[in-house]
C-alpha cells in the first residue's frame, strides 16, 4: 500500500508544476540582432500613437462641434470640464510612458546581444544594431517631447517642472518623481544626437513610416521651437527643407496623401494598415463612416469651417462632400442635424472606413517653424514668405504675399495658418498654449458648436487648463512623490 501512495505522490507534481504551452520567457527573447529588429517592430513601433492627442485637442479646443449622432460622447470635455480623472489625460500620459518603457526594454535587450562581426564572410551587423537603437531612441525622444508639451506648465522654461525621467526598465513597483524640463531635454537631445548619427534611412523616400534622419531633424526642430530656442529650431528646420528631398504637396497630391495613397510631404507617419488590428483614428468623431450619415458624434467646428476660403483645397480635403450646410445655422433650432460638416481629413481606406495612417510630421510644419523664427526676428516679410509657400501649395493658383501691420498680426497669421493646416492633427491645444499670448488668440468656437448656444465658447489662453493634469491613475500609484499641476 505504501508503494501505491509513494507512486502516486511522486507522479502528482505534474498538476502543480505547469508552464503553459507556447510561453516565451525573457531569456530566449533577445538573442540576435534579428530578435531586436523583431522587438522594434513588434514591441516598440506599435506603441507610437497620436490618437490621444488628436482626440483630446479636437474636442477641447475649437476644431469640432457636436455632431448629429452625439449621445453624450465627449460632452464633458467639450464643455471644458478637465480634471485629473479626464480619460484623455490619463491615456496620453500612459501611451507615451508605455512607449518609453518599450524602448527601454529594447535597449536593455540590446545590451544582451553582441552584433555578429565576421570579417571572413563580410558580415557586420554593427550598423544594423546601432540603427535599431537609433530608431528606438528617436521614438523615446518623441514621447518625451509630447509629454513635456502637454504636462509641463511651460515647456520653454528648462527649470519648470517637467515629467518623470525614466531611462531604465523599472522594477515593477518603482516610482519616479517629476524632474525639471532641462533634465528631460538633456535625455531628448542625447537620444536625438545618437539617432542622427546612427539611423540608416536618410529621407522620407527611404520609408516615411519609420524613423529617418529627416524625421530626427524635424523632431529636433520641433523640440527647439517649443523651447523657444529659435536659432537651433531654424537650423534644423532649414536642414530638413533642404535635405528631405520632398516638396510641399500640391492640392491633388495633398488629398491623396491624406487617404494614404502617396507619401507627399509627409516626413513621418505612423502606419495603420488596412488589415490587422490597428486603431481607427476617425472613431474619435464617428461611429461608422466618415460622412454625414456615418454616425458623427462630432463634426467640424463652424468657425474653423468658415476659415477655409473657396479654392482652398483644404476645404474639400478636410470636409466630406456629404456635408449639409444650413445658411441659417446661427438662428436655426435644428442646426445640430441640418448643419453637418463631416470631418474627412482621415477618409479611411479600403474596407476600413475609419482608419488612416497618423501623420506626425509634415514638411509644412518646417515652413511654419521657419515662419515663427522670422517673426521672432521681426522679419515680417520673412513670415509672409513662409506662409505664402504653404498657401500656394494649398490652392491651385498663386496666392498674394500677406502683409502685416505689426508683429502681433504676423503671429496671428501664423496661428491662423497653423489652425487651418494642422486641424485634427493634435496641434491646436499646444499652439494656443505657446503662441496664444503672442498672437492674442485663444479657443474660438462658434455658439453652434454645442447643443446649447449659451455656453461659453472660449477660455483664456493663460487658463490653467492649458496644462494637462497629472492623471489620477498616476497619482494613485505614485502618491506624494509626484506633484500635481497648479489648480487641479
Amino acid at each position, binding site marked *: 500500500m505504501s508503494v501505491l*501512495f*509513494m507512486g*502516486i505522490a*511522486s507522479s502528482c*507534481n505534474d*498538476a*502543480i*508544476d*505547469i508552464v*503553459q504551452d507556447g*510561453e*516565451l*520567457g*525573457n531569456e530566449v527573447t533577445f538573442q540576435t540582432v534579428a530578435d531586436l529588429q*523583431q*522587438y*522594434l*517592430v*513588434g*514591441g*516598440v*513601433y*506599435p506603441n507610437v500613437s497620436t490618437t490621444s492627442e488628436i482626440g483630446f485637442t479636437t474636442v477641447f479646443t475649437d476644431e469640432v462641434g457636436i455632431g448629429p449622432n*452625439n*449621445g*453624450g460622447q465627449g*460632452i*464633458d470635455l467639450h464643455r471644458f470640464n478637465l*480634471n*485629473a480623472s479626464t480619460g484623455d489625460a490619463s491615456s496620453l*500620459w*500612459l501611451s507615451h*510612458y*508605455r512607449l518609453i518603457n*518599450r524602448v527601454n*526594454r529594447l535597449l536593455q535587450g540590446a545590451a544582451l546581444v553582441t552584433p555578429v562581426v565576421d570579417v571572413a564572410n563580410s558580415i557586420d551587423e554593427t550598423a544594423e544594431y546601432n540603427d535599431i537603437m537609433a530608431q528606438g531612441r528617436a521614438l523615446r525622444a518623441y514621447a518625451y517631447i509630447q509629454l513635456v508639451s502637454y504636462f509641463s506648465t511651460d515647456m520653454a522654461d528648462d527649470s519648470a517642472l517637467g515629467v*518623470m525621467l*525614466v531611462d531604465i526598465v523599472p522594477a*515593477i513597483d*518603482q*516610482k*519616479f518623481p517629476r524632474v525639471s524640463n532641462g533634465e528631460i531635454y538633456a535625455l531628448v537631445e542625447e537620444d536625438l544626437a545618437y539617432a542622427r548619427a546612427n539611423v540608416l534611412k536618410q529621407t522620407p523616400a527611404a520609408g516615411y513610416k519609420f524613423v529617418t534622419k529627416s524625421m530626427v531633424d524635424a523632431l529636433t526642430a520641433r523640440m527647439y521651437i517649443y523651447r523657444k530656442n529659435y536659432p537651433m529650431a531654424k537650423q534644423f528646420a532649414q536642414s530638413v527643407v533642404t535635405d528631405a528631398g520632398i516638396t510641399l504637396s500640391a492640392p491633388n497630391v495633398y488629398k491623396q496623401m491624406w487617404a494614404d495613397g502617396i507619401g507627399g510631404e509627409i516626413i513621418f507617419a505612423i*502606419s495603420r494598415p488596412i488589415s*490587422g488590428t490597428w486603431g481607427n483614428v476617425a472613431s474619435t468623431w464617428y461611429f*461608422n*463612416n466618415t460622412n454625414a*450619415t*456615418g454616425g458623427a458624434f462630432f463634426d467640424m467646428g463652424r468657425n474653423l469651417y468658415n476659415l477655409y476660403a473657396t479654392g482652398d483645397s483644404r476645404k474639400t480635403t478636410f470636409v466630406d462632400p456629404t456635408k449639409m450646410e444650413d445658411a441659417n445655422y446661427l438662428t436655426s*433650432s435644428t442646426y445640430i442635424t441640418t448643419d453637418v460638416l463631416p470631418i474627412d481629413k482621415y477618409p479611411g481606406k*479600403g*474596407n476600413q472606413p475609419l482608419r488612416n495612417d497618423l501623420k506626425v510630421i509634415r514638411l509644412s510644419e518646417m515652413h511654419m517653424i521657419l515662419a515663427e523664427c522670422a517673426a521672432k526676428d521681426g522679419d515680417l516679410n520673412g513670415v509672409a514668405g513662409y506662409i505664402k509657400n504653404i498657401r500656394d501649395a494649398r490652392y491651385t493658383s498663386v496666392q498674394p504675399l500677406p502683409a502685416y501691420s505689426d508683429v502681433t498680426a504676423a503671429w496671428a497669421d501664423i496661428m491662423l495658418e497653423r489652425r487651418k493646416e494642422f486641424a485634427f492633427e493634435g496641434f491646436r491645444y499646444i499652439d494656443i498654449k505657446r503662441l496664444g499670448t503672442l498672437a492674442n488668440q485663444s479657443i474660438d468656437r462658434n455658439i453652434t458648436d454645442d447643443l*446649447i448656444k449659451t*455656453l461659453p465658447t472660449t477660455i483664456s489662453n493663460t487658463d490653467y487648463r492649458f496644462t494637462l493634469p497629472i492623471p*489620477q*491613475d498616476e*497619482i*494613485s*500609484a505614485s*502618491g*506624494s512623490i509626484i506633484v500635481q499641476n497648479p489648480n487641479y
Partner: protein
Amino acid sequence: MRSKFKWIFTLLLACSMQFSFAQEKNVSGTITENGLPLPGVSVIIKGTTKGTQTDMNGKYSIGASKGEALVFSYIGFVTQTITVGSSNTINLVMVEGGTELDVVEIVSTGYDRTRTKAETSSAITTISSKTLENRPNASFLNSLQGTAPGLTILSASGQPGSAKIDMFIRGISSINAATEPLIVIDGVPTNGNQFRNLNQNDFETVSVLRDAAATSIYGNRGANGVLVITTKRAKYGSALDITYDVVTGFNKLPENNYNMSNAKQLLTIEQRKNTGMGAGMTDAQIAAYNGPDTNWRDEFFRIGMTQQHNLGLSFGGANTSNYTSFGYFNQEGMVPTTDFQRFTIRNNFNGKSANDKFNYSSQVALGYSKRNQLSQETNSAVNNNTIQNPLLGSVAGLPYVAPNQFANGAELIAAIGTDFSGPNDTYVLEDILKGSMPNEYSETSILANVAVSYKLSDSFTLGNKSGVDFKLSDRAFARAPGNYLALAVAAGAGEEFGGLEVLSSTKDFTFTNILSLNYSKLFNDAHRIEAGAYMEYMKSHYIFSSRQQNGLNPKTWTLGSGTGYIAPDVVNNSYIPSVGAQEINAGTLSYFGTVDYDYKQRYGVSGVVRRDASYRFVDDNKWGTFWSVSGRWNIDQEAFMENTGVDMLKLRASYGTQGNQNVIAPAYGTNPLFPGSALVRDTNVTTNGYDNIQGLATGQVANTDLIWEEVSQANIGLDFRVAKGRLEGNIDLYRKQTEELYTTIRRSAAVGFYGQDGNNGKLRNSGVELMLRYKLVDTNDFDLSVFANGSYNEGKVVDIDIADQSGEDLLTVPGQLTYEWNMIPYLGVNQSNGNLLFLDAAGNVTENPDPTQDRRRTGKSLIPKYQGGFGLNASYKGFYSDVLFAWAKEVWKLDISHFWAYQLDFIGDDNISADLLNSWTAANPSGLPSLDATNQNFSMDSDRFLNDASFLRLRSVSFGYSFPKKYLDNTFMTGVKLFVQGENLLLWSKWRGFDPEMFTAGTQSTYPNPRTISVGASVSF
C-alpha cells in the same frame, strides 16, 4: 511531501496504540411495522456515521459495542434509540406518526464525512429535495435563494439557462478574486460555476457550509464557503419505485417603473424641448395626433412557455441499489429569439460485498442542452446599445413610429442608410430580433465519479474516489447576410457580400482523485476517535478554438453548415477568415488530515490541517497551509438539562483558515481555475507587428510575489430544538477576515500600465445569522409550520494600499464599507434656472461640481447588509402549500437606465420618461430639472440615481393536492400529486427598473428574472 504523509500515518498509529480496544460484536434483528417487515429503515450507531439499512425482509446486521446506542429511523415513523446491551439481537416495531424532524438528520461535512446533526460542530444548513423539486428554474441556484442564512443568490439575467448568477456566502470576501463558493457534487469538488446541465430534481440535499470548521477541509478552495450537493440514491432492499413529474409554465417579463411616455406625452416633451417630431407642433396638433402609438415592449417580448418532464426509477437489492432518472426541460425566453432546452440522464449505483467490507458506488450524470441567447448575455458592451439590446430598445423606442415597416435588412438600409438617429436604431433592433443574428449554444456534459472503499479492519477504511467533470460547449453565431448590420458593414467597406459567422468550441475537462484512509474507534464506551488522512489530486484542461468567416452568400448560407462562404479576396483585404485557439492546463495537489474526538456525545473537538499546492504560484508561495479547530458542547446531554423540555441544545465554536487560489474572478459560467495561468512569469509574445511585419512584443509582466488570498474565520453558534421539536433553529456569530486580498496594485505609468493584479489589502466581514422554524399546528390532518432565516453582514475594508480614490464611484478605502458609493450629493433643482444643484466638498451649493474632488462617502454599499427568506409549509388532508419569500435590505445601485429615461440629450432621439412632463419651468417650479438644464451630465457623478435596491420578493409559492393512498389502492399508482406553482410573482421594491437583483454596480438594461406560473403533476408507481 511524502515524508509529511508518512508522518500523518505514524501519528494515527500512535493514537491507536495508546488506547485499549473496546469489544465490538455483531448486533442483528428484524424491524417490522404492523407485523410486516419494514425495509429501508436506517440504523445508525449514535454519534457516528456508521450505519446500515434493513433489507427486503426488514433484517439488519451491524457491528457495535456494548453501551453504544442504535438509532432506528424511517420517514413517517417515530425514531427510536436503543442501547446495545448483552444481547446480540435487537428487534423493533416501528410506529407511525413521526415527522421528518425526528429522523436523525445526516449532515454532510465534506469528503463523504457525515455527522448526525447533533454532532456537527460547524455552521451548516441543509436544504432538502422538497425545496428544489419541480421548480421551473434551469439552474438549481435560483431555487436556493432565500433558503439558507448567509447565502446570497442574485441572478443577473433571466435568459433561459443563464450562467449569470452571483452567489456568495457571508458577504464578499474578495475584490478581484473569485467570490463564488466551491460546489461539491457527490464528494467531488467541481470547478464549475454554471450548472445549467444539472437536473435539480436529482438532488437529495444541498448543504451550505459557512464557517471554518466546515470549510477548512476544502483548504485551497473553501474560502468563499462551500455548497455540498448529494444526489439521490436508492436504498438497499427497497422495492422498485417509479416517479414521473410533469410541469408546464409560462414566463412573463416583469414591468419597469420608469413611466415611459406614450406618443402624445413624448410629442409634448419634444415640443417643449423643440426637437424631434414634436418640434414646432402646436398643442392642438398634438391633441389631434392619431398616428402610431407603439409599445415596443409588446413588439419585442412574448410570454414564454416552460415544460419539464422527469422520470425517476429506484430500487435496491440486498447488495446493490440503483437510481436512474431522465429529465427534459424546455424554456422559451421572453425575447422571442431566446430559449433553452435540456436533456439529462443520471444513474447512481451502489454496491457492496455481502460482508459489508467492500463498498462501491458510481454517480454518472449526462447532460445535453441547447440554447439561443441574446449576444447581450455575454457581451456587456451592448448593454447600452439600443440597436442590439431589446431590454433597452423596448424602453428607448419612440412610441410615435409604427413597427414592422421594413420587411428585411435590405429594405431598412435602403431607407435609413447608416443613420441610427431618431427611430432608426429601433428599426435595426427589430431587424435583429427577426432572428438575423442567431447565437446558438450547445453544451454536452459528463459529471461522473466512481468511489470504492474497503474496511481494512473494524477501525480502518481505505477509500478512493475518482471524478470526471467534462463540458463541451459549442457556439454558432452569425450576422446573417441579409441582416441590416451585415449590409451596413458591407456597404461601408465597399463589399458585395456582408455577414459573418463564428463557430467556436470549448472543452473544459477536470479530473479529480481523492485517496483516503479513515479510522474510527470507540474506547471505554465513552471516547470516540475518528481520523482521516487524504490526498487530493486535480488536473484541469481547457481547450478553445474558434473560426470566423467574413462574407456570406445569402443564397446558400445557413447557420453552421459551412455553405455560402465567400472566398478570401486578399487584394482588397475582403472576406478574410480568422481563426483562434487557446489551451490552458491547471492543477492542484493537496494533503490533509482530520481528527475528531467525541466524549459520550456530550463534548466534541475537531481539527483539520491541509497542505495545498497550486499551479498558479511559484517558489515559496506555491504551498499553503490551512487549518481549523472546532468544538461543541451538547448541553442537552447534561444531567441538569433533564426534564427541561429541551430536545437539543448545542453550543459550537470554531476558528480556522482557508485559501483562495482563484485570484481572478472568472467570467460567468467559466472555470475559475483557468484565468491568470501565467501571472507569475514574464512572458513575451510573437505578434503581428508594426506595418503588419511579424515581430516580438512584451506580453505579461510578472508578479512573482503573488500568493494565496487567505481567509480566517471565527464562528460561535447555538443550535436548539425545544418544545417537543416544535421550535428549532440556530444562531451564528462570525467574523471573517481576508488577508493578502487580491486586488489591483496601482503601478506608475513608467512600467507601462496603471494597474497590476496582486495581493494588496485586507477585508473583514462580520455578521449574525439566524434561522428559525416553528410548528404552529401539528395534528393528524393539519400541519402548519413557519420558518424564517436572516442574516446581517457588514463588509469592511481593513487595509488597502490605494493612495487616492476621490474620482471613483465605488470606494475600497480602509475603515469603510466594501464597495461604498462615493458620490456628489444631489440637492435638487435650482428654482431660478432649472439647472441641477449639487453640494461641493466645501459644503457650498453649486451647479458645477468637480467630479473628482466633490465626491464624498455615502455610507451606502453595493452589497446587501441584511438579507434572508421566510415562508410557510402547510398541509391539510392531502392539500399542501409552500410559500417562500426572499429579501435583501440596505443595498444601493446606480440606476443607469433611470438616468437614460431622464436624459435630456436623448429627447427627440429616444423615448423618455413621462415624468419629464413635470420638468421645471419658470411657471412650473418643480423638483425635476428643466428640459434645458445644462449640467445634467453631472447626474452620474452624483447620488441622483443612486437608488435603493432593497427588495422583498415572493420567490416561490406552490399549492397542491396529494391524493390519499386509499383512493389509489385499486390503481397501478402509489401516489398522485397535482400542484400549481409561481416564481417571482410579486416584488416590492423602490427600484424603478426591471429587476433590483443583479449584482452589478451600475445596472443597465439586463435581462430580468421572469415571472413564472406553472402547473404540474407528480405520479409514483
